[in-house]
């Protein structure tokens, strides 16, 4: 995996820095015994993505500084009595040096999300070549950073190299949509079953109640289902495959929403039913229901993708993507 060396170095630095910050604050008592550590809020405080936080927590667990408990996340120490609170309210001490490192290092990560979203949502318009120099200019970053970004995009399966070693993205065809949904309807129900013992059912109950309110949309439900249920399966490879399979589908769906695709009330109802089943620990029926839901979603996605044919790609063009005729 030579091509990811650059990426791994930055990743290493980042998770090491995060575990340092957490370790120091436990020592000084700012992070009290029993405090519940959750990936998301830590990532926010550290201005990081979740992956390095995950890694940092794993290290601290190995060092027996934190431990798993009967709930989501970890607790500081070995406490049986989890203390819940907002980590941002704890006023964690982050040394100037580390703070600076957190800000400056991993430039590629700071720009990555936007590039990923832009490219993933361009796939519906066809096949593109990525011009590396243009991408660097567009982002205002060095060639090294561009290479890090491209490595990550390639790992996520969004881009590939052609015979002349150019980076190519797309197209997202009906066939690939159909295939991706077929994979999803095999993997996601299976992952849900694997996840069953690790799901925080109190959290799902909370989601289920929240879903009753009309202000949440399909996309949020789908994300919640993945993060709070499916991704609890203790199989990182499986979850990573699911995330990668979903990536261009979700990006296409977001792109269509930006074009004015209205809310899918039927899908929203289906998610409510799903959370209801999971909350009551009816995992087998929930898995079957999920499989059927994904089949319907596949059909709708195919029909919706057709509208893209009447939308000019010129309005959605990016300077670093060149259309392949």
């Amino acid at each position, binding site marked *: 995996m030579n091509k990811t060396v650059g990426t791994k170095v930055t990743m290493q630095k980042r998770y090491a820095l995060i575990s340092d910050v957490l370790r120091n604050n436990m020592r000084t008592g700012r992070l009290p015994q029993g405090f519940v550590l959750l990936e998301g809020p830590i990532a926010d405080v550290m201005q990081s993505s979740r992956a390095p936080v995950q890694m940092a927590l794993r290290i601290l667990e190995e060092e027996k500084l934190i431990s798993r408990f009967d709930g989501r996340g970890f607790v500081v120490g070995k406490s049986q009595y989890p203390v819940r609170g907002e980590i941002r309210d704890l006023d964690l001490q982050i040394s100037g040096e580390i703070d600076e490192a957190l800000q400056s290092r991993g430039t590629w990560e700071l720009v990555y999300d936007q590039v990923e979203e832009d490219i993933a949502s361009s796939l*519906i318009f066809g096949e593109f070549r990525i011009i590396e120099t243009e991408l660097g200019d567009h982002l205002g970053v060095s060639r090294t950073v561009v290479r890090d970004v491209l490595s990550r995009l390639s790992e996520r399966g969004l881009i590939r190299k052609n015979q002349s070693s150019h980076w190519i993205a797309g197209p997202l*065809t*009906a*066939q690939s949509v159909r295939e991706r949904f077929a994979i999803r309807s095999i993997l996601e129900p299976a992952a849900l079953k694997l996840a069953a013992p690790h799901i925080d059912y109190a959290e799902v109950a909370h989601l289920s109640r929240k879903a009753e309110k009309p202000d949440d949309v399909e996309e949020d439900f789908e994300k919640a289902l993945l993060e709070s249920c499916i991704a609890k399966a203790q199989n990182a490879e499986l979850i990573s495959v699911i995330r990668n399979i979903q990536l261009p589908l979700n990006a296409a769906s977001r792109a269509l929403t930006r074009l004015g695709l209205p809310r899918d009330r039927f899908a929203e109802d289906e998610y409510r039913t799903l959370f209801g089943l999971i909350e009551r620990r009816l995992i087998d029926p929930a898995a079957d229901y999920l499989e059927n839901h994904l089949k319907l979603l596949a059909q*709708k996605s195919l029909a*919706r993708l*057709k*509208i893209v*044919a*009447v939308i000019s790609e010129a309005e959605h063009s990016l300077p670093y993507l060149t259309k392949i005729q």
Partner: protein
Amino acid sequence: MVKSPAIIKRRTLRVLGTAVTLLDQIKERAERDLGFDLEFEVLDFVSCQGKAALSPQAYDIYDQCFHNLDIVWFWGALQPIDTQRITLWDQVSDLTKKGGISRYAWRGHGDAPVKKLYVQPGDSLGSEQGRFISMLPTVHNLDSFGYDARVFGYEQRFNESWAWLLDARAKGRVAIVDEPAIGIFDAALAAESSGEIAFADIGNMTVAEIDALIKLLDDRRQKGFFRTMWRTAADASALARNNQVDVQSMWSPAYGELSGGAPHFLEAVPIEGYRAWHGGMSLRHGLSGDTLDMAYDYMNWWLSGWTGAVMARQGYYMSVLEPVKQALLPEEWAYWYGGEEALSDLSGTAGQTVVQMGKRRPGGAYSDRANRIAVWNTVMDEHNYAARAWMRFVERVRAGQP
């Protein structure tokens, strides 16, 4: 003090559609018969479909084709039509209700209207019959191609093939309609019947099949096969009249517009069958109250015969036959629907002669023609991919690129 006259606000129904049905004479007559104003917005197929999906507040009725329906439907822009409010629903033909005019009629590949007609549980569309429908079936036709008999020969009945669109005899004098959900099927039928490509399902091509078709067309283009890609029936008619093509995609009204000006230019009855299309009307999502009532009035009026007669004079058929028969002259009905010899010259929509006495409609009676559907105009699963590839091909032909 003079009392100002009461202001009576005229009610207006907005119809978004294409030149197939949104004719001035229909607007005038409907306004007179129905007592409200109509606002017609006429667009080409592709823009019309885009507007219907993305600007659902811009119209009340969407008057288009079944093959352009599911995009708009799945975009959430439309609402179901209650068949109990359609007076002549019982008389609507089995072509749309069941997928064929009889049990034994060819079903055709692709988007047969029946597959999109009924609203299913979960708001999807399918052929399982129910009270609510997505689009009220109206005008339709069985299309083929036209050819110069001086090139391909007279007396070719039962020998005419879509393959002629790729035939070397017509090299440099071939034209195809540019619309991606229509023209691509004329080309695909040609490629399949010439034996150059075998599609697993011509109505739902794979990416590899689309690539193969475009490559084949592009090879022909580089050899100078194509004269042009036409856009409207009037363009097609002009190409034939001005002797610029030997074979081309052709729509019914274009033959009428030739009005005897090119007697050697014949409508084919392809051995492979026709490329069919079916129009209809849908209701905008959120339409309610008085405007919804007006919309139902307008749709019911459309099925009541007079419009069917106007459509017949362009060669189009209606989904409800009996009222059309009543509205046409007996000799018109006999020619257009019966496939019989014209007992007099027959007029078109503007009063001009479109059929000379003694002529017979190629392909015969409606029942014969509607029995032989090879493929329906279709927005395939890979439409987004196919339409982009097709339009790039169209541009290359138009640009005359080598």
